[in-house]
């Protein structure tokens, strides 16, 4: 009887044991120089990053890297949870949109000491590429590539309509509107509404041209809604002429292949330069890149170079030195960049960029050329997005749909955007 009881108890405990046993080895291994690396990505990026990790470990055999990767959506759920639990990795990919919020919550470490110690070499990097990662003079992230907003168009449609290709450094929104109408008249090809996933990117460019910013210290950074009004007025005029793809169709979230541009229903699409590779792959025809048009009487540059993503070291990192070493290797080493191939954006060290320009394929070459064009026509980047920007962007997208679906009048929509914007960002 007694034996039977013990047997039962022993069996019951055995069910719990495996978890404890198998948890042991991992805990012991971390005593050695192990660092954790996390990024969001896609299969191509993952494959290239694994290769970089492998090459780094071959060069620095004393450091072991554990990797974590997910898609964009799941990534921030995961990182925020890890931040709450105090278990962030040693090196994490970061984004401009969340940078300020993380710095304000003291989650990220200043990288300046590692630069001073010579672990991270920034000597080949122009300050304009670094400023996006600075908050109050401290460096919280190093850009892994440069990105700029752009417009991609189908030169064959323009040729068919007999329209000369625009000089995108000087063209205006009036030119754009004229071209869009003429293309529609001659070929029946329409224009897609501007920046359907994130309309703020579109009018932000126009507001910047007036010397103002969308976000202020508190509330909106601009008080005169006339440029904002024009952003919607152009689209409404095109809509009334039948030249704009209907919002019921354009605002459905679809894969690039299902989009109106890929199907050839629009002559133009508004994207970030690092989306060009996938846009081009979906469209399957030659495309060109151009700067966004100028507004009438522009006093500043609307375009800016945006760090596509950062590497940041969390303040809670257990092995920040190893993380800094890997960061430096990833950033500056030419042979590793041969594998990364500018997938995260155009590299920021001068020598790496020049080295890459000779190696990339034609599509990436277009991006490199565009970034170089944009860098000559760019103004300084605005401060990182404030808290509440997520809610603001959703509101903007809602109001944009209301205006284009004609549920509200243009003036009512614009004034709603201004008042709600100031409320949300207060």
């Amino acid at each position, binding site marked *: 009887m007694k034996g039977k009881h013990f047997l039962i108890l022993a069996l019951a405990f055995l069910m719990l044991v495996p978890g404890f046993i198998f948890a042991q080895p991992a805990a012991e291994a971390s005593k050695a120089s192990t660092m954790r690396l996390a990024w969001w990505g896609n299969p191509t990026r993952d494959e290239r990053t694994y290769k970089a990790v492998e090459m780094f470990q071959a060069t620095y055999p004393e450091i072991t890297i554990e990797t974590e990767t997910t898609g964009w959506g799941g990534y921030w759920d995961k990182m925020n949870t890890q931040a709450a639990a105090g278990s962030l990795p040693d090196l994490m990919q970061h984004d401009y949109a969340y940078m300020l*919020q993380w710095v304000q919550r003291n989650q990220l470490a200043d990288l300046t000491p590692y630069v001073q110690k010579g672990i991270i070499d920034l000597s080949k990097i122009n300050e304009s590429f670094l400023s996006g990662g600075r908050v109050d003079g401290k460096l919280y992230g190093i850009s892994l590539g440069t990105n700029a907003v752009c417009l991609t168009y189908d030169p064959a449609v323009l040729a068919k309509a007999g329209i000369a290709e625009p000089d995108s450094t000087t063209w205006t929104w009036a030119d754009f509107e004229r071209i869009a109408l003429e293309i529609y008249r001659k070929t029946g090809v329409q224009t897609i509404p501007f920046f359907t996933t994130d309309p703020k990117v579109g009018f932000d460019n126009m507001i910047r041209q007036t010397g103002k910013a969308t976000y202020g210290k508190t509330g909106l950074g601009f008080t005169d809604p006339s440029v904002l009004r024009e952003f919607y007025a152009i689209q409404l005029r095109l809509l009334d002429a039948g030249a704009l793809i209907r919002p019921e169709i354009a605002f459905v979230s679809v894969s690039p292949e299902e989009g109106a541009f890929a199907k050839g229903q629009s002559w133009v699409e508004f994207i970030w330069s690092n989306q060009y590779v996938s846009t081009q792959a979906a469209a399957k025809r030659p495309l060109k890149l151009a700067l966004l048009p100028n507004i009438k009487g522009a006093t500043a540059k609307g375009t800016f170079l945006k760090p596509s993503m950062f590497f940041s070291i969390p303040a809670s990192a257990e092995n920040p030195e190893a993380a800094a070493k890997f960061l430096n290797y990833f950033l500056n080493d030419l042979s590793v960049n041969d594998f990364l191939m500018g997938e995260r954006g155009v590299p920021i060290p001068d020598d790496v960029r020049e080295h890459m320009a000779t190696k990339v394929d034609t599509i990436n070459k277009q991006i490199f050329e565009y970034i170089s064009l944009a860098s000559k026509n760019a103004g300084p980047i605005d401060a990182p997005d404030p808290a509440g920007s997520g809610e603001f962007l959703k509101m903007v997208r809602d109001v944009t749909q209301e205006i284009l679906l004609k549920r509200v009048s243009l003036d009512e929509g614009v004034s709603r955007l201004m008042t709600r914007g100031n409320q949300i960002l207060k």
Partner: protein
Amino acid sequence: MKQLSARKRAWMDDFSGYAFISPWLIGFFAFSIIPILFSLYYSFTKYDILGDPVFNGLENFRTMATDELFWQSLKVTFFYAFVSVPLRLIFAFFVAMLFNRGTRAIRVYQAIYYVPSLVGGSIAVAVMWRRLFMADGALNAALAKIGIVTDVSWIGDPNTAIWTLIILAIWQFGSSMLIFLAGLRQIPKELYEAASIDGAGALRKFSHITVPQITPVIFFNLVMQLINGFTVFTQAFVVSGGSGDPLNSTLVYALYLYQRAFKYYDMGYSSAMAWVLVLIIGLMTGIVFKTSSSWVFYEAKEGK
């Protein structure tokens, strides 16, 4: 063994029992009870995950009163639940009636008709639904074949988008159907035989035997599906790409709660929303239970 007192032995019995179910108990406490209590606490705080939760009393609940999207999501959810649940149940009941005739091939059909319930929340369905209901999708192509030419984007028009989700809900009738079928098989054959002898037609048998006999199953399905309807998330998430598009017309309650939590990192507010949803579901279920005595037929009550 003889030395052990009866008390000690009882304790040993209890202990080994608990030890055996401990994997479940640990899971239940670690992943259900403790998180539930935390979310109750968070619902009275302002909490953005990165910082520490700050107690702010009833502020979250006060914010809801003026939050347009909160009311919009309630409106969408009530509409969705009140339309899709009855339609799904009627459809499931109808299909179960067809299957109740019982040929051998029925088993195969049962399996096939259950598949939508399994795949309903997958990305493949999201893609398929877009292809069906886009302006140049399959539905419009089919309508054109029968002479109705339209270029309505069913999935992109704020007036029609919610209906694509309702159709998806009806399409996932499998589990309700299986339960109905089991219920139908339980109805004693003698009742039908007796009714036939008394000269009752098919319609009369349906309304006087089938429906009354099946009311306990209807009741069970109604409660389960009502809860499902109010907590719907996956279908709305995948079909609208997580946005509740177009114009928040598919922004169901759980989707808005998710956006608040994981897009705006407003954990306090979304916890408060979760508890409000618990109250709403509790209330709706309570109402169904209260009314059940007047329409659910239990054999045990017969003969009173």
